[in-house]
């Protein structure tokens, strides 16, 4: 049991945390502490209620001083949560913070095992591994990097706009990159916003023009990020600026060119009107589009298709802003932090054929209805169906593409509320009978439940039951020519057939098509559903696992406008806090080549993903640039003669962990 005589006099302090009942309820913390006390090198072994609390940390510091401890092991939660906390505590106690190792007996043990005996055994094994590991720990200095104060915001919906403005108002330079020709996102398409029913455009457009006019914001619409290099504080981003075939500086948005286009009528489905109207090849998405610049759709424009257009648009433009030869541009920018606010897409109703979208012309998606009731929409706010009639009976189907394991299993959070809003607006516009078919009514927001009350009092029908089918097969004369909605009225316990003139599908929110590509590019993770994954669901909701990259809005999960704005503000604040600190401490887990041991075989050179390893031609040996090394350790594993080492993850440390886990004490290895 003794051994290690050849080592320096190691005095380990071991602490096992109860974490209230979280750990102590599922394993015997006392016996873990007692067991560890018997291990070589352990001078102090204690259990304590909450190690991360101030008294817990002070306990460690006091022990370091009084018991001359020179290694600390804490068995508590995941190192991803509290490793930093304890390192600081160790440092305050007067030890190098890297003389510390954390044992995860909560997420990896107490929360996942029910057999108390087995859990205790496992905790002991993990503790022994850590105790043996710290023998080979070395004092290290953390790496510091400077933070470039400029910020990149990706996505110009309400979240991106709000984050960009917050940062710009704080005096930071912001690049706002938006994929589509205008900022505004989904919110710009909405008519009214729940529960206050204030007009979306009225509250959004002022913010859009602030973005355009802010001296600290560089707005690049119709642009996409194509490459991200670098690391926290020093990101290098490549942006592709797609050609609009309009000189952005010259165009004033007078729209004369659109007027004069050889197409008298639009032929292309208008994206902004959810395809309910047609636009011309030269167009501006909507009157308040920002920037207020037109663009030409290459796919639709005769000049691009045949080269034989009269180019009446060019004639019409007295500022000579039209430029058919415009090329795609590639811009490089540098930013210290990045906020991703790339938004969501609505569920594709084609995937649920039983609701007849695309088959029956009077089945609409909620987004289409937003445009239909909008005064600036294709019908100037008049609710006229595709068959030219005004509906007298309307059915709104909730949870389309939500809460369904065959499509999307999550609740999209906004549909209940916007369905209520649409029910109100449709009733207001048409005086029709409106039926809501819902599974559960979810109104958990400020003044939301009150809005539901209002709708109930407006005598909107609420049928609790998921719709099985929308069909035109009539079984009664009164059903002829109608769309029949079949659902069980679960409150009453009877199946109902409700014939309506218009069906509204309350489509859910899902990750954008390119969410996976975006997250790869920015090196962040996605949750199973495909939304961007936050660092911690409660405590770090806008952080990601990559330092300096934050997420805001519906790209993180379904969210309504108030939540998106709140999150955008939070993301901006996180970025600001980093920028104002000026620098960030990085894990010193970099690799280094022991010069006298390197044979210069070049194996590592081919492997490093960051080109951090170069060859010193004079010495004929490899050399690792610490600033470029990110600490993956791939070269260490590959070095055939064991000449590369990784701080915090040296071979010896891992071997001693393996030994410890397999119930071998350090004397028994090798």
């Amino acid at each position, binding site marked *: 049991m003794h051994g290690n005589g050849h080592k320096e006099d190691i005095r380990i302090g071991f602490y096992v945390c109860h974490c209230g009942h979280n750990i102590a309820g599922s394993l015997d913390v006392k016996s873990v502490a007692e067991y560890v006390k018997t291990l070589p090198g352990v001078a102090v072994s204690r259990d304590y209620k909450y190690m991360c609390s101030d008294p817990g940390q002070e306990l460690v510091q006091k022990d370091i001083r009084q018991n001359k401890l020179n290694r600390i092991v804490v068995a508590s939660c995941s190192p991803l949560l509290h490793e930093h906390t304890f390192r600081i505590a160790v440092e305050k106690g007067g030890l190098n913070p890297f003389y510390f190792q954390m044992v995860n007996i909560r997420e990896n043990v107490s929360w996942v095992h029910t057999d108390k005996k087995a859990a205790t055994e496992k905790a002991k094994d993990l503790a022994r591994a850590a105790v043996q590991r710290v023998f080979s720990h070395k004092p290290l200095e953390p790496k510091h990097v400077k933070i470039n104060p400029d910020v990149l915001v990706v996505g110009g919906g309400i979240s991106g706009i709000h984050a960009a403005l917050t940062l710009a108002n704080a005096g930071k330079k912001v690049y706002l990159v938006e994929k589509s020709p205008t900022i505004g996102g989904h919110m710009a398409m909405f008519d009214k916003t729940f529960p206050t029913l204030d007009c979306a455009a009225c509250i959004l457009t002022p913010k859009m023009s602030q973005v355009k006019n802010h001296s600290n914001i560089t707005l690049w619409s119709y642009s996409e990020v194509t490459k991200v290099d670098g690391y926290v504080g020093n990101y290098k981003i490549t942006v592709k600026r797609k050609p609009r075939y309009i000189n952005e500086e010259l165009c004033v948005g007078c729209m004369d060119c659109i007027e004069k286009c050889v197409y008298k009528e639009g032929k292309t489905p208008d994206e902004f009107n959810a395809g309910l109207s047609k636009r011309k090849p030269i167009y501006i998405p909507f009157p308040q589009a920002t920037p207020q610049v037109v663009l030409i759709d290459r796919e639709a424009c005769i000049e691009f298709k045949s080269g034989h257009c009269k180019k009446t648009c060019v004639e019409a433009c007295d500022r000579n802003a039209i430029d058919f030869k415009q090329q795609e541009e590639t811009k490089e920018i540098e930013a210290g932090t990045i906020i991703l606010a790339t938004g969501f897409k609505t569920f594709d109703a084609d995937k649920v*054929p*039983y609701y007849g979208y695309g088959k029956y012309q009077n089945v609409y998606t909620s987004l289409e209805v937003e445009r239909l009731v909008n005064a600036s929409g294709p019908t100037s706010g008049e609710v006229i169906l595709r068959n030219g009639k005004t509906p007298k009976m309307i059915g709104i189907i909730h949870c389309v593409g939500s809460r369904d394991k065959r499509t999307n299993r999550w609740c999209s959070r906004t549909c209940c509320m916007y369905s209520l809003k649409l029910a109100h607006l449709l009733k207001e516009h048409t005086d029709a009978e409106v039926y809501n078919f819902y599974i559960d009514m979810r109104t958990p927001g400020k003044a939301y439940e009150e809005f539901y009350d209002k709708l109930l009092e407006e005598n909107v029908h609420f049928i609790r039951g998921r719709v099985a089918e929308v*069909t*035109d*097969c009539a*079984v009664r004369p009164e059903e002829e020519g109608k769309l029949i909605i079949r659902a069980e009225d679960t409150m009453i316990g009877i199946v109902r057939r409700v014939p309506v003139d218009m069906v509204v599908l309350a489509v859910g929110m899902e990750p954008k098509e390119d969410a996976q590509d975006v997250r790869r590019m920015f090196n962040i993770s996605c949750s199973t559903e495909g939304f961007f994954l936050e660092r911690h669901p409660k405590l770090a909701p806008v952080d990601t696992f990559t330092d300096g990259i934050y997420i805001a809005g519906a790209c993180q999960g379904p969210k309504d406008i108030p939540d998106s704005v709140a999150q955008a503000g939070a993301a901006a604040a996180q970025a600001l806090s980093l920028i104002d600190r000026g620098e960030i401490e990085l894990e010193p887990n970099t690799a280094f080549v022991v010069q006298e041991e390197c044979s210069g075989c070049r194996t590592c050179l081919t492997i490093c993903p960051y080109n951090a390893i170069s060859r010193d031609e004079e010495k004929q040996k490899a050399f690792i640039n610490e600033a470029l090394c990110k600490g993956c350790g791939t070269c260490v594993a590959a070095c055939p003669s064991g000449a590369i080492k990784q701080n915090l993850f040296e071979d010896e440390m891992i071997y001693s962990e393996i030994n410890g886990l397999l119930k071998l004490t350090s004397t028994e290895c090798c």
Partner: protein
Amino acid sequence: MKYLYYPGCSLRSTGRAYDESLLAVSKKLEIQLEEINDWNCCGATSYVSIDEIDAFSLAARNLALAELQSSDEEVNLIAPCSACYLALLKTERFLEEVPDVSAKINSSLYKAGLHYNGRVNVRHPIDVLVNDYGLENISKRIETPLKGLKIACYYGCQSLRPYATFDDQYHPMTMEKIVEAIGAEPIDWSLKTRCCGGSLTGTIQEAGLRLNRFLLKEAQKSGAEIIITCCPLCQHNLECYQERISRFYDEEINIPVLYFTQLMGIALGLSEKEVSMHRLFKKPSLKRFSQKGAAAHAW
């Protein structure tokens, strides 16, 4: 092309026309069907209602027999009746995916000196015709294209649900493709997988008849001249109760209900007798095609 063939009980009684026409069509298309020796009832839906393991074991015996009869690495077994198709398919699934059920079935088989290795692939004749034989090859052999004949394809429940493997569960199109391949015109209607009530016509007739009435009316309304189906029980229900439905509901219902194989046979130049039209209550009027057919035949 060679397949093992599991006709099932219905095809030996109410569904004889299905059996005979399928065999005739297969012969014409040079698809060899070899009947499983001494096959037994698949268990259908009734058996599962009483004893699950017995039901699976019944079906599994057929699978085991099929394996005995073929040395192919993958034994393709055609089960034309929807209930048989599902019962066999489901047994295959459970054998593969539910270990405790699988153990019980295997021990039952063992008691009978049988063993099942999982080599059988249960196939629906539509699947085989469309995916193995190929629509193009069918088209090539058409002698009497049934041009302009409007057909409602009715799939019923169990050929597709819940384990549809060869077509979409909601909007199946394979039978329509066959209809197109033989030159006829499939009509679009939305009830092609709606239930016909199964044995309810015999047990709770009001319920059964109402379901069938709905189907028949909708098919007629959609302009179909003929309904074709791939299930003996569906065919029986849709065809044999028309008179009663007309009487009950006091409305005219009159539409021939054929097995899809019967219609195919006609298009392939087989005679009405060969595809067992004489077994139907209501023969379709295909006279306008017969001239051409006869000519081709004589040739």
